[in-house]
């Protein structure tokens, strides 16, 4: 193919930029980004932590769920600049450093609670957060359904995910 003159391409737009400093998975990070960059894009494309997925960008599907200061939250409804100073935890921190799965992840594997795996990190982050909370877990079918009610899955029909939550509780001695 004929070589053409390379177009002149700017580095970035003229959006105002701001330096965002926060802790992600225990590590302090600082990046200068557009003021309107979403936290999901910041994690995925500035930090390269692409395990956090984006399914709707309007806060309904839950794929982008991360922990923000210890609470499960939607990274697609949060601006990176809003997370300045926050402590963020993503799916990449859930398994052990050697790759050994967290009990919630192990339970998903045992129960065939994932198919395409796109919603899975958000599901896992939501469930891990609920398990992190002190106090008893409601492990009735309805209780687990309620626990999962912020995350859409289009592949599994949820039944195996409900089973996985119960299995995770067993594995963690919370049943």
């Amino acid at each position, binding site marked *: 193919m004929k070589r053409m003159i390379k177009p002149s391409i700017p580095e970035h737009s003229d959006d105002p930029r701001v330096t965002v400093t926060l802790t992600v998975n225990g590590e302090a990070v600082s990046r200068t980004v557009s003021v309107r960059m979403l936290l999901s894009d910041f994690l995925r494309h500035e930090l390269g932590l692409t395990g956090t997925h984006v399914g709707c960008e309007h806060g309904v599907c839950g794929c982008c769920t991360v922990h923000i200061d210890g609470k499960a939250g939607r990274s697609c409804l949060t601006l990176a600049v809003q997370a300045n100073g926050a402590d963020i935890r993503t799916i990449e921190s859930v398994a052990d450093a050697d790759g050994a799965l967290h009990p919630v992840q192990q339970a998903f594997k045992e129960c065939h609670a994932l198919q395409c795996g796109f919603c899975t990190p958000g599901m896992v982050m939501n469930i891990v957060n609920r398990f992190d909370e002190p106090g008893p877990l409601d492990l009735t079918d309805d209780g687990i359904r309620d626990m999962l009610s912020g995350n859409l899955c*289009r592949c599994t*029909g949820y039944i195996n995910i409900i089973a996985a939550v119960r299995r995770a509780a067993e594995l963690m001695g919370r049943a």
Partner: protein
Amino acid sequence: MSTRSFGARIERNIDPKLLRGEGAFVDDIPLANPLHVAFLRSPHARARITSIDVTAAKARPGVVAVYTCDDIGPLDMTMPLLIPHPSMKNPQTQRPLARGEVHYVGQTIAMVVAVDRYTAEDGAGLIDVEFEPLPVEMDMAKALKDGAPLVHATVPNNLAAHLVQVSGAPDDAFARAEHVTRITVQVDRSTAAPMECRAVAARWDAVAGELTVWDGTQAPISVRGGLASIFGLDEDKVRVIAPDVGGGFGQKVLLFYPDELLVPMAAIQLGRPVKYIEDRRENFLGSSQERTQIHSIELAAMKNGEVIGLRDSFLHDTGAFIPYGIAVAQVASTSIAGPYRIPNIWVEFKAVYTPTVQVTPYRGCGRPQACFALERAMDQLAEELGLDRFDVRRRNLVGEHQFPYEREGLLFADGLKVTLDSGQYDKALTMAAEALGAKDFAAAQAKARSEGKYLGLGLACYVEGTGLGPYEGGHVRVHPITGKVYVNTGLSTQGQGHDTVFAQIVADQMGVKPEDVIVVEGDTKAFDWGVATFASRAAVVSGNAIHKAAITVRKKTIVAAANMLEVTEDEIELRDSAAWVKGSNRFVPLAAIATASNPLRYAFNEAAQAATQFAPASRHDGPPLADGEAPGLEATEYYSPSASTWAYGVHGAIVEVDPDLCKVTIKKYICVHDCGNMINPTIVEGQVMGGIAQGIGGALYERLDYQPDGNLANASLMDFLVPYATEIPPVSVLHLETPTPLNPLGVKGVGEAGCIAVGAVVASGVEDALKSFGKIKFHHVPLTPTMISDALESVGR
């Protein structure tokens, strides 16, 4: 082999990666300095475009390029008609960017490339387009009338296709029928809504002259062929990779979506990687949809419930374009008699252009509509004849001794007459009745009613033609270093667990653990003969091709091992990743056999060194590779099905309806299904349960709400109600395994099985629950609270 992998509930190989967040979906692929794409889409359903001004968009800092149809050279063309059929008159297909007019809200008009997606969207918002809006008609029946507004000026009456198929002598059957039941039913428009929207990224390597495209597609080989052809590149210089794909359900195979061509074009022109990540709103507006059909169905019956004839005439909404030809309507029309003998059939459809995004197969592909029409009619027939719903069905089911059961005159999507190949239909119905507690249900229903509760039993049977041809291939190779078995096929996966089920097939032949079988698919550099993932065909077509290849490699392995161990082939068995002399402790590892089967080898590792302790793997005189011999343990085989293989099932539910809130609660849902031999029952159940959840969405919640002006009022997950866990009841999946005689593995497809019958089951159950109020009929899904309220009002409640 001690343990058979085929048929075992084995955990999936792919899961740890996906669970750790290490999946590689298109937008996760790290690209150096990518540019980002946004599209300007039409706000009108029908309009002439009188001018497009991109000056302000181009001036926006950060915008790199803006393309309209005038800027895309040879890509300014109509897309291919994928499946031609003589029933279509002047078939219309889509263009990458609108030229002169638009045909639906959401149609792409211009593409903006910018340094980030935010800026690209800014740019799209700054494009000034002048439209002259044109009138539209959203109602199919009205759109067919003379004088109705046209979706395409060149297509009179908006009639895209018209087809009549006849089996037997339906007029005679209706003439001698003792009873005729007639109903009209409707299934509304829905969408696949995969959790990952569509996505395309492209990188052009000017030095190598190579184009690499990551496309969340179900059909990477076809996309590669199209790109090579359109860009004038050698096929070998175009690599298309479908990496991890977040669900597809049919939506991710079109050939071509605008972005699939325009993103690679921009990457070539701009010399930078370019990506387009569809957002959710765009997925609702711009990616294919399916379902709206209106059926007028008649059953000609005898008083005892035997159905001797069927007439069905239906309208099929094909959207503004018909790239897939009549596929959806054809599958609906040929599935119309379900699992019943019904020997005399007349089925007609008219496919109608509407000013909406194109209709292409969505999981089910016309079958849910056909099932809804037939099963609602069977319920109606039972009621009119005063017979039990189970009994009417049982009287008509194809018997076990009647297979293969042919429907002369009905041509399925493979171009062959419908031939139900095997099954135990009657047994499935019996199992469903038992699982539902049908015998005792009337008493339970009466008791509940005395307590003020309204319970109903819903029932529906379905068949599903699966495993469509023409062919797929399988490549199997034993790696000489690790002894692991590598497998390739031309399909791609969107979560179906191919990497595990294909591994199970190979593991049994090669005597290895499934986790030591590495399946690589969805990459044209790995394997580039084949078709795609659709029509519940992967396990059937690729599965059998891989099976054949594994048998060939097994034979080669045994010959080589027999030579190395200096015994006869009969004395060799393969297990534990090695070839053993039966009844002894003498063995040679697979890695060593693979190494010894290569005339040039270096002693990289122990396996290679071990290989030298044995006799040669090949016994012959002459050069190291004998004439006709190939190095290594490797084979490629192909499988081409002689015909589709028909899976089937029976679904049932117990529902409760609150007549005050008009709320439906599914108390219990059961599914008896038969997809032939199951490779992995856990994965089969996953497919079925996922399909049922989608079916529940279609039965109760999911309806694309097109307004009279053609605007889609609910283009978000906030307003289009995909079920959460809170909407899905407990589901029991019961298996029958009747092997098909049509392929060596005896397998049938299962991908679409779950979703087909659900609408019919739910409507049947709700109707049964409310029958004490009077003649209330539910012939339209999704079945909304408003419909229930209107129905109750109509009988004076």
